[in-house]
């Protein structure tokens, strides 16, 4: 039996097709201006790669900020629920999930059955979200992958005085003008990002195992800095791209729905 999950985020859109509990295809694209355009495109790509059509999918669940605007989904489920579900599928022992999206960040805690115990989100302030890194990468003329890698080569990371993206950007420009090495600036940026995320994570109370989902989970500079600041090991997701965790969760909900099971 096939099931599909579609996660329409502010920056990227993700789709996953599962068959009998296994992922057969997944796609990540840059989001378009309108959520339904993103949804159509990402779904068409994933279906054609899997050699399927929409008729083959008995149930598709949508999630992400644009989830209510996807025409073809059978049900919309919150991002929190989908990320929890997806993370547990990826790391069965997970109890705390930190998800960094393009314009928000969330931390959630699950019990040993995978039920949501507590969650906290920030979508009011760009600091601690993917947007923070994006802004810094832009003024540093780096792409996001480069920004993540550079941390490891830094000898003396800079300290950013303020968490605010606007002030931190001004700080970074100042350091660039002062000819501070790009590695040291990158490390300072990644540390600042991690320190903002750690506030959120500490707020819900950490429980092992901890894992990270979302695109920023692929940034080693940030993940290493966060481990150091939280004083806890973060389990790396290697089975699949951590960025598709929400879409995986959505597909798992779809499979349950198709079976007629409750979530």
């Amino acid at each position: 039996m096939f099931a599909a999950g579609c996660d329409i985020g502010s920056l990227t859109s993700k789709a996953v097709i599962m068959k009998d509990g296994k992922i057969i295809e997944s796609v990540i694209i840059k989001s378009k201006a309108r959520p339904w355009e993103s949804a159509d495109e990402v779904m068409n790509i994933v279906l054609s790669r899997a050699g399927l059509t929409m008729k083959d999918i008995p149930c598709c669940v949508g999630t992400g900020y644009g989830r209510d605007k996807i025409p073809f989904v059978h049900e919309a489920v919150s991002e929190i629920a989908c990320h929890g579900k997806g993370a547990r599928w990826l790391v069965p022992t997970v109890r705390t999930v930190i998800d960094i999206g393009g314009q928000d960040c969330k931390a959630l805690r699950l019990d040993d059955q995978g039920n949501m115990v507590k969650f906290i989100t920030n979508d009011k302030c760009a600091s601690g979200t993917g947007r923070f890194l994006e802004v810094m990468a832009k003024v540093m003329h780096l792409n996001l992958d480069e920004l993540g890698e550079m941390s490891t080569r830094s000898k003396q990371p800079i300290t950013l005085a303020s968490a605010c993206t606007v002030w931190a950007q001004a700080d970074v420009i100042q350091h660039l003008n002062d000819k501070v090495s790009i590695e040291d600036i990158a490390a300072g940026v990644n540390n600042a990002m991690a320190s903002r995320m750690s506030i959120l994570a500490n707020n819900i109370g950490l429980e092992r195992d901890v894992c990270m989902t979302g695109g920023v989970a692929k940034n080693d500079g940030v993940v290493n800095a966060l481990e150091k600041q939280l004083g806890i090991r973060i389990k790396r997701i290697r089975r699949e791209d951590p960025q598709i965790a929400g879409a995986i969760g959505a597909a798992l909900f779809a499979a349950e729905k198709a079976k007629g099971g409750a979530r």
Partner: protein
Amino acid sequence: MITAGCDIGSLTAKAVILKEGKILASEVILASAQPEKSATDVMKRALEKAGIKMEDIQYCVGTGYGRKHIPFMNSEESEIACHARGAVWQVPTARTVVDIGGQDAKAIRVDEKGNVERYVYNDKCASGTGRFLEIIADSLDIKLDDMGSISEKATEKLTLSNQCVVFAETEIISLVNDGKEIADIVHALHQAVANRAASLARSILVESDAVMTGGVAKNCGMFGALERALGVKLHKVEYPQINGALGAALFAADKVNGTGR
């Protein structure tokens, strides 16, 4: 008796020269990277305007974030104290002062003598500071000084849903793409900045009368937006941007009179 006050802010440097309780001259310049230079330059120009020399100044008080670097000052005073003092001198009935600067915002409650009772300060987040206006002016390609008059032409009521400057900038770009009028957008922006500053002020309990100081008070759109957000009568002051330097010059006069702290 001639005294002076010098306020070195993040974006501008201000100087006021007082003679027998009257403003003899004042000056505002853009701050340079070196606070020493900003202080020397702004004071030199104020002295020229007043037609006097540095030796004629009996006492000079420095304030602002760069105050430690003012070479010619006799003593320093906090920005909060100077803004409170200046505001009450300008509007004697003032009990709440909302100061929106280029990179910060403050709200101060004062007694009838201009003493600080309570205050709250934000320099951690760019929202609710002048920087918010500056960034949006830049992305709309309009002049900061024109924003007030542009907002007066607003006809449609828009509301920005984001408080964060970074997110609001994106929201504003989509409003432009949706064909919304610049005047309506700027009007909504003023309200967003004012709401943020007002929520800061409410945490110390706003008392009537309120005054608005700082460079942002020169923007008539911001003035109206803040009055709406605070819900109390807001007074215009004659010298919003030099208010801190004015307070510093008043403290300097206290020193000469022997009534100072």
